[in-house]
């Protein structure tokens, strides 16, 4: 069963830049897909549509639910978006309150939201940081806290935008372990082919707002000379 079904998605930014030109995309339940492509090729613009943060032409269905104004709230609960810069995602005074922010917005009571947040922080090995202010965390810790904030909302799809940016090798390794253990369907927007290869079973290559190719991570990296371009 497909949890994401996108047909003919087109989007033009207010400055006139055509960012997406007819994207067709599917994501199966529990599948992990990597999105590759040059900066500005439309990857981030595309994933922002899945959560209803941008709205273009075409149709988007999330878990069988058509993305419309009246389904926005339900869809935002189903699609957890982890942004590239964790500083932009951690805005509450403490890590625990930040992780509980999503559940509270979903109408969960304060005590239950805090309990759920504590559980998620334990799951990402961040129990020691519950009372810390987000700006006291390292880059890796911020990333894990941001992921916990999204997981606390019990999403069915987790979308991660450049998750390995500013992570050191141990942090990157920990992140791979954490993501492997997640049962949800995942979309990874990344330039990091090795990272994608260790998690994704399929890769999609974006080029000037279109999908230029699909296949296994190795196949796509070879076909678009992506590994050498990214890592030379």
């Amino acid at each position: 069963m497909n949890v994401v079904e996108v047909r003919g998605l087109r989007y033009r930014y207010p400055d006139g830049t055509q960012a997406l030109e007819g994207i067709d995309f599917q994501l199966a339940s529990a599948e992990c897909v990597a999105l590759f492509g040059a900066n500005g090729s439309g990857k981030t613009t595309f994933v922002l549509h899945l959560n209803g943060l941008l709205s273009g032409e075409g149709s988007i269905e999330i878990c069988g639910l058509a993305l419309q104004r009246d389904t926005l709230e339900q869809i935002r609960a189903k699609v957890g978006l982890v942004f590239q810069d964790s500083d932009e995602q951690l805005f509450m005074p403490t890590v625990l309150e930040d992780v509980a922010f999503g559940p509270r917005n979903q109408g969960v009571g304060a005590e239950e939201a805090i309990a759920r947040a504590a559980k998620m922080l334990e799951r990402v090995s961040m129990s020691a940081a519950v009372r810390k202010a987000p700006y006291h965390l390292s880059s890796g810790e911020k990333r894990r806290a941001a992921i916990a904030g999204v997981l606390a909302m019990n999403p069915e799809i987790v979308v991660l935008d450049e998750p390995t940016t500013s992570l050191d090798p141990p942090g990157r390794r920990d992140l791979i372990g954490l993501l492997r253990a997640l049962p949800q369907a995942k979309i990874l927007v990344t330039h990091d082919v090795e990272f994608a290869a260790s998690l994704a079973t399929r890769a999609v290559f974006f080029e000037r707002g279109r999908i230029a190719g699909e296949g296994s991570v190795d196949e796509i990296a070879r076909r678009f000379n992506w590994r050498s371009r990214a890592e030379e």
Partner: protein
Amino acid sequence: MHHVVIERWSRESSPLHARDARAKLGALVVFLIAVSTTPPRSQLAFLAYAALLAIAILIARLPAAALIRRALIVLPFSATFALITWLGGNPMRALALGEKSYLSGLAALLLVSTTPLPDLLRGLESFAVPRPLCLVIQFIYRYLFVISEQAQHMRLAARSRGASFRASAGALAVLFARSWQRADNIYQAMLARGFRGRFPSFTATRFRAADAAFLLASAAASIAIRIAL
């Protein structure tokens, strides 16, 4: 950064921390009105206000020396006006100006040091402070640290290229543009997690009998000092 320390203090526990933010805000408003309307000649009253704050600091179990030192930050602003008043031939009024601003600053600092920011903002909202203003306060508080770090990076980048960093219009414009972009991204991140225009609270906001008693007692003390001394 100062606000990191105050943030930590605000999350400690004491009988004053336990009071509802609305009770503390009400007590502060009465205190500020009493202090600001006290005539300059009533020096005994200023001493009594200071004693009242000292009792509150003791009850809050906060480090008194650090709190008193931090409140000195208000003095450079009022000292200018106090100096002008002094030179204008009214030393008593100048002294009272310094005392009033310091006591007011210390009282406000005591409030933010005993009340977590989300609770304080909720209290402000119940005092009819517009919600957008409360949101702006929350974001300034949270992102002051990030923006100051951004400014430090720009300063280092300018130095590494042999330039001395000055707060030129160009650098400020870049900082402003980056802050604007960041604000936009933060708002998107909030929407993505279901934000609907109100920050959730994590503490019970029931106004209890103890809160009412605290408000009445502190307001009565401020008014008594104002009238009697």
